[in-house]
């Protein structure tokens, strides 16, 4: 039973470019959440997808957008990259989206913006 997978593992982009990160949830999970983790910080919630819709969003600009597919996999898109977008991007999946549903994190995508 595969856990949460993310691709790519590492990515280097330059300012102003656009990036797409991908996530496949743990088998049987239907909810995907995305987090940004800057160096030395705790993960910050970006947004959450359930039934192919964005259910809630954290304090991130519209440059950050996402999508969930019918097979529950998800993409995170970031436009007009800034140096400050350099971070570890984590995907977490759960079965359901209530407060008590345990979230399982993927290994993350390390994004470096030059």
């Amino acid at each position, binding site marked *: 039973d595969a856990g949460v997978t993310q691709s790519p593992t590492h990515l280097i982009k330059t300012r102003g470019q656009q990036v797409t990160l991908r996530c496949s949830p743990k088998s049987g999970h239907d909810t995907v959440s995305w987090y940004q983790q800057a160096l030395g910080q*705790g*993960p910050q*919630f970006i947004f959450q997808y359930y039934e192919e819709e964005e259910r809630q969003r954290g304090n991130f600009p519209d440059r950050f957008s996402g999508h969930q597919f019918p097979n529950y996999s998800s993409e995170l898109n970031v436009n007009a990259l800034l140096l400050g977008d350099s971070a570890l991007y984590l995907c*977490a999946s759960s079965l359901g*989206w209530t*407060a008590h549903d*345990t979230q399982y994190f993927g*290994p993350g995508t390390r994004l470096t913006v030059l």
Partner: protein
Amino acid sequence: GQQVMQIPQYQHVQEGEDFTTYCNSSTTLSNIQWYKQRPGGHPVFLIQLVKSGEVKKQKRLTFQFGEAKKNSSLHITATQTTDVGTYFCAVTGANSKLTFGKGITLSVRP
């Protein structure tokens, strides 16, 4: 929204010593979760506490939720080098959005 604080951000212990860290909030929490992130790794779920005064144990790790549900503690008995990493507490809101503390990074001297 709900916020949790973890102070200090770093702690160094000698292997075999006990270690305790706290997670504090100014508001009553509905629940609290603890995660461990190894260097270069990703957060791994350890435990969730829901009830006031709840205590849960996992081998050498003991987790407690305060009676007022405003704080939580993690205690590690006889630390080992495998305990190295950053320990985060996190709280969920009305749904499963997690708000993390800044974490405490534990280093263990062999």
